[in-house]
């Protein structure tokens, strides 16, 4: 039985029997309120501690990272891109101080603008510092690149919305990225309607209460209305613009479709100017990082199963998140 489940059952008993002792929280962690207690248990479960891992019920999936993933924050933490993603992390946290910002939609005006790459790097950066729990949701129910990469042929958000599948049953904890992933699920023709539904909004809302950050990957705004639908369910939308590629008019139209007030900001992806700037100065600071990098343990690369470099270690599910 998971620690969380036991705690919740104890809560139930206390509700039924107020005189009963309040259940204790997770080991070494005490909080005054129940929600904080639950969260702390979840944090512990997501800390990578094998003992804590045993207390969570999300399946752990070992993924093989390749260079094409462009996870600078993971593979090259001293690179200019990784520094920039950390800066983005700082900016997001600063925004959170002034507004409610938990669920963030990552979208772009046109395909191939790099929103998935940006999303993965943001998630990794958020996870690396302060140990925020991060859930990445693949909201592209038409042509999911994330699901195809990390969880092919599995059910996901589509089924959760259509068939009321428990999202916790399909959420995976990706290693070594150390953030959670909710796949898109089976591609659906009525994806836009599904995403517009109240069920989708409810699921996102429920997920936001369980994670520190919920980052949702969406299709581009121009060809489809999915991003517009998802934007209504999230706290803010982050626009990814590819430098020297995305037409400015398309960006303007996309922003106007999303709604300017819903857009928290833009990320200019792939600028050469930043390349030159960091090329000039990274040599000064990069040497120290490189030394530290060389002392760090290598990236874990489990044996492949020949299916795309993905192996999964499934721990039986024992937790049902409250509806």
């Amino acid at each position, binding site marked *: 039985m998971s620690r969380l489940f036991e705690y919740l059952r104890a809560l139930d008993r206390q509700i039924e029997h107020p005189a009963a002792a309040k259940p204790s929280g997770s080991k070494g962690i005490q909080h005054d309120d129940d929600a904080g207690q639950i969260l702390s248990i979840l944090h512990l479960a997501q800390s990578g501690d094998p003992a804590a891992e045993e207390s969570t019920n999300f399946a752990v999936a070992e993924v093989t990272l390749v260079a094409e993933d462009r996870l*600078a924050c993971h593979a090259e933490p001293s*690179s200019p891109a990784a520094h920039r*993603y950390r800066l983005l992390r700082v*900016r997001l946290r600063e925004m959170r101080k002034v507004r409610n910002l938990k669920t963030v939609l990552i979208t772009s005006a046109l395909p191939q603008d790099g929103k998935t790459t940006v999303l993965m790097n943001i998630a990794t950066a958020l996870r690396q510092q302060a140990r925020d729990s991060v859930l990445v949701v693949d909201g592209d129910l038409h042509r999911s690149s994330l699901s195809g990469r990390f969880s092919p042929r599995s059910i996901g958000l589509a089924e959760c919305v259509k068939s009321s599948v428990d999202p916790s049953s399909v959420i995976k904890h990706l290693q070594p990225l150390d953030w959670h992933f909710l796949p898109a699920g089976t591609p659906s023709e009525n994806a836009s309607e599904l995403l517009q539904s109240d069920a989708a909004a409810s699921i996102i809302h429920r997920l936001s209460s369980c994670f520190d950050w919920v980052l949702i990957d969406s299709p581009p705004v121009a060809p489809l209305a999915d991003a517009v639908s998802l934007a209504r369910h999230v706290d803010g939308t982050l626009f990814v613009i590819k430098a020297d590629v995305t037409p400015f008019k398309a960006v303007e139209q996309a922003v106007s479709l999303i709604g300017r007030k819903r857009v928290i*900001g833009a*990320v*200019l992806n792939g600028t050469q100017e*930043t390349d030159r700037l960091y090329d000039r100065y990274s040599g000064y600071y990069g040497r120290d990082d490189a030394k530290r990098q060389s002392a760090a343990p290598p990236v874990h690369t489990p044996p492949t199963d020949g299916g795309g470099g993905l192996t999964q270690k499934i721990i039986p599910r024992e937790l049902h998140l409250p509806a």
Partner: protein
Amino acid sequence: MLDNMQRFAFRRRWWLGVPACVVSVGTVIALAFVPSQYTSEATLIIVQQQIPERYVVPTTTTDINTVLGAMAGEVLSRTRLLAIIDSLNLYSHQKARTAPEALVDLMRRNITMAPVAKTPGRMVDAFSISFTADDPRIAKEVTGRLTDVFISENIKTRTDQATTTTGFLREQVEAAKQKLTDHEERLRNFKMQYLGELPEQQQGNLNILGGLHSELDNIMTALNRARQQKLYLESLLNEYRRLNRRTVTAAVGPSAESPLQLAQRDLARMRSELVQLRSRYTENYPDVVYKEEEVGKQEAVVTRLAQSEPRRGPTRQPLPPSADPDPEANTAIAQLNSQLNANGLEIEDLTRSRAKVSAEIEHYQSRLNLAPVREQQLTAMLRDYDLLKQNYTDLLHKQLQAQLAGNLEKRQEGQQFRLVDPPNLPLMASSPKRLKISLGGLAAGLVFGLALAVLADKRDSSVHSEQLLSERLHVPLIVAIPRIRTHEEQRAVFRKRVLESVAGSLLILAILAAQLHVILQRG
């Protein structure tokens, strides 16, 4: 702004470089097919005439522009140019398919004549002749021919002009002279016709008229005196006759006066009158002179009577009328008659003189009356005469000057051209300006490329910089992420950059090679 320009240049470097290279190299290649043209030039100066102009005024203009214009028409005539084309076999390739007029036009376009201005504001005194051809030797030969033609034609033209001017002026002088002679004849005839009525004779006429008036006065005075003499003689004759008719005179009593006494009494009276006249007038006064003559005559009568009185005695008995008159008295009467006759003749003569003088006076008076009319006529004739004379004088002066100038030209001491710089053999092509054109091609290529780059940039509405995004999107730009490349991509980028560097170097080398080729070809 400089950063933006740098980014733009880097972003569109191929739009800039490729057109520049293509146009530049293409220009050089095109220039290779353009044959070089060589220009040979000669310089001539205008040598002023040796004799100062204040002594010999030239008949031709000295303005260089006018000279050039006049000579150009002569030197560049179709006949001369065709002769040069035929003698030097110019434009041999075009001859077969081009009309002679077109060849002449082509040659004219290759000939340049221009003044050489030495200093601003100073009159030009030199000019250059140049000819452009494919072959430098031909250019030099043609320029030499043109120069020779220029010099010889200038001399011939100036000489002809001086000769023509002289001949023309000679004819004009002859005509003016004839006109002047005719007018002099008319003037002479006029003067002869109206001699005496001319204004210059007016004073003479006045003097003559005055003299005639004086003469008339004298005649009138003489006539009056003669008439008075006649009256006197007649009275005296009557007296003598009366005395002669009284033959007997009474003894007693006072005896009647004798003629002598009467004569003496008249003499005394005349003398008293003379004295009165002398008291009023001078001796030359006509009345005084006349009275003196009468006194003289009367004294002669008294003397004669005195001589004849004693023979008759102190008293004489008058003879009866039937008796014969005194022969002495008859003598006196005869004398008186003769004097009367003389006086009558004198009066007639004076009357005729008076009429004559009056007629002359009238004649001269009419002359004086016509003098203003003649004066007016004469003035008009003299005015025309003066004009004709002035014209003749001027023409004569000009003819002399033209003759002098013509002689000067014949001796080739007038204004003439002198060759200062003979035609040169050009070693360097004058056109096309290969280096300029190639550099111009390069510049045009750059401009063209720039235009294409700007056009491409305008059409490219993608976002290039954070600043642009911030300015135009009005959505906060949170961060700019550099490109994340895999090793393969980095190697590909590296290869691409190497290729770009090589290609860019090749472009630059191509441009430099083209320019170097042009520079070497110039040498």
